[in-house]
């Protein structure tokens, strides 16, 4: 559980943050959430599809790193084997949240329970006088960007659902030395529905900057073969 507290130059004067990649938390997961801005760099290495969060039922874009729920073919211990590491595996303990009294204003909060937060290791966020450090300024900027990316991704999904551009169908997987199985619960851009979209709606997708992401997701489906090959290669190595 996270415990978010608004940053305060008195209470957090001596706080230090040591940002670390968190690849090891992903090694038992085959679907990792990504932002819309990550579709293009992700699509070069693995399928970018959509799936429901089991806890909330909300649809979000994910990269597919394995075929079974606990299979991640891009992790070797805490080492990431891909070219692009998704932002969800580089989480910052500093998070931008809307102000309780004013939705327009963002407040920077810190997750005090995060192992990256201490008073011993990493970068200071305030100096002895209580002024923000350059590190904090950069992190604040980044946190605001992350929030914007998150909202943009939510809007993308809402639009795709509203325009009926997502479909679900099982993918059948045929491993070389094991019985075939189906992967279910994934949602894909419906290419046919996209082709039949009205000019007005298509223009809306273009104006909102969604077309690039949509095509990246469509093209990334060719990476399913790469993913299968990665699986076979790792099995061969292990054997």
């Amino acid at each position, binding site marked *: 559980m996270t415990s978010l507290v608004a940053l305060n130059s008195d209470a957090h004067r001596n706080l230090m943050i040591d940002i670390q990649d968190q690849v090891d938390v992903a090694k038992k997961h085959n679907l990792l959430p990504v932002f819309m801005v990550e579709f293009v760099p992700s699509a070069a290495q693995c399928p970018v599809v959509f799936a429901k*969060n089991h806890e909330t*039922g*909300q649809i979000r874009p994910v990269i597919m790193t394995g075929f079974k729920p606990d299979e991640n073919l891009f992790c070797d211990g805490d080492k990431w084997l891909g070219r692009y590491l998704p932002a969800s595996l580089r989480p910052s303990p500093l998070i931008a949240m809307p102000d309780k009294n004013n939705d327009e204003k963002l407040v920077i909060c810190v997750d005090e329970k995060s192992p990256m937060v201490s008073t011993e290791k990493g970068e200071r966020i305030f100096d002895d006088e209580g002024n923000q450090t350059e590190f904090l300024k950069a992190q604040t900027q980044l946190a605001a960007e992350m929030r914007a990316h998150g909202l943009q991704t939510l809007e993308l999904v809402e639009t795709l659902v509203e325009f009926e551009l*997502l*479909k679900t169908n099982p993918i059948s997987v045929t491993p070389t030395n094991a019985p075939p199985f189906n992967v279910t*619960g994934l949602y894909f851009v419906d290419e046919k529905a996209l082709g039949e979209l009205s000019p007005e709606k298509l223009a809306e997708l273009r104006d909102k900057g969604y077309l690039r992401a949509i095509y990246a997701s469509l093209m990334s489906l060719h990476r399913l073969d790469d993913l299968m090959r990665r699986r076979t290669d790792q099995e061969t190595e292990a054997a």
Partner: protein
Amino acid sequence: MNVDELRIEQVVIVGGGTAGWLTACTLAKNLASTQPGAIQVCVVESPDIPTIGVGEGTWPTMRRTLENIGLDETEFIRECSATFKQGSQFINWKQSANTDQPHAYYNLFSSIYNPADFNLAPYWALGHAGSDITYANAVSAQGVACDRGLAPKKITTRSYDAVQSYAYHLDAGKFAELLKRHATEKLGVRMVAANVTQVNSDEDGFITDVDTKEHGKLSGQLFVDCTGFRSLLLGDTMQIPFKDVNDVLLTDTAMAVQVPHASKDADIACVTKATAQEAGWIWDIGLQNRLGVGHVYSSAHISDEKAEQQLRTYCDDLSGELSVRKIKMRVGYREKFWHKNCVAIGLSAAFVEPLEASAIFLVEAAGNMLSDLFPRTRRAMAHTEKKFNNSFRFRWDKTIDFIKLHYYLSSRRDPFWRENKQSETVPDSLLEKLDAWSQHPISKYDFSDTNEPFPHESYQYILHGMGFEQSLQSSAPTFAQVAQAKMYFANVVKATEHICRDLPSHRSLIDKVCQYGFQKI
């Protein structure tokens, strides 16, 4: 112009409430009222007459109905304090409360196998499912799921889709408000807030318009009477007599209370609980924020004071804090539901005790049939009238038989219960069926009519839940697919484990729906 060729262009629904607004939504949606030139629907709702608003349980048909009129399931659940209902649980109906072990059984909405394809009931009756398994648990996973307080679906399940079939419990007052908003904002229904002072007819006895105190005359070619027990159009104006069925169904009074949950995270039962009492029974429906509880009883067999006391005892309300609302029920139906250009839907048409949630369910059915067969001219109306009347007479007779069945199979000894078994109170149609079923399992041939309100499986849940004596021994060789039946029973046990492992608790799903909502895909 020949009046027979008079085109139906304006429908006037008199009365709001669940019946009025649900009918308005169904008609306006199916007749595409927002399109130019389409038939228009108008609802006259009195700002002064309160709605009865007790019907709080539905059948699974409500999912199709709501999806059809374009309401979002998440919005519906949030706005109406709605919860999921997977069936009914009947407590102490077979015999009076025994302190150690109350008798209880379920009537559930889904069985693993459809009895029309393979009826497991005779194989269960012959003992092939094992000797100590109830009928419900032998054929369905839902009873075990309900015992454990589980929901019928997950937060990842699409809107209106189910893992196990379900209906809803809802706050009827809030439901009517939501339907009103949806009808007027999305479906092109016009609302007139006014009190009807007079109903006017032409020389042929067709209603031409209604006078209102606030907005003058409202005319139309078809009138729907949703005025509740008053039955202002069909009863008062058209003089269609009411047929009492209090010689069959003996209850005539209800007392309702609202009981807040003990805490915000209290468990919510996923079934309607119906607990038998000395002279009636108590319903218990869990909504998001409260329970709706009520005592339905026969005033000839128990005093109001005693009935109220039993209700308060059930609610653990010994200090008498809860405010009780008493409702006199007139049980029966109009001799016709449709007369000339007037159709009665809801309490204006008929009422029986809410034991099997027939009220809202038959409102849906009436709205669907009305829009499916919608007459376009006055001439076409006579034919629709006949079909509609035959259909609803059939549905109400079946509903009355089905409710009576619950009482008839009881071995309770109180005078009310004994009277319920006396042959002069039991319809011949029911006795005939029971006689046949005592030696032959219920079959799909008993349910060949498309208007049949309650499904085959519901009868089996009631019959076998109540321990109906069926002697199939002489015909046992007919049931020769024993190996297959045993395999199916084993599959039900496996499916039950699997389904129960997978489903969240009812409360946690409701909380998640309120927080995140279901997806449409």
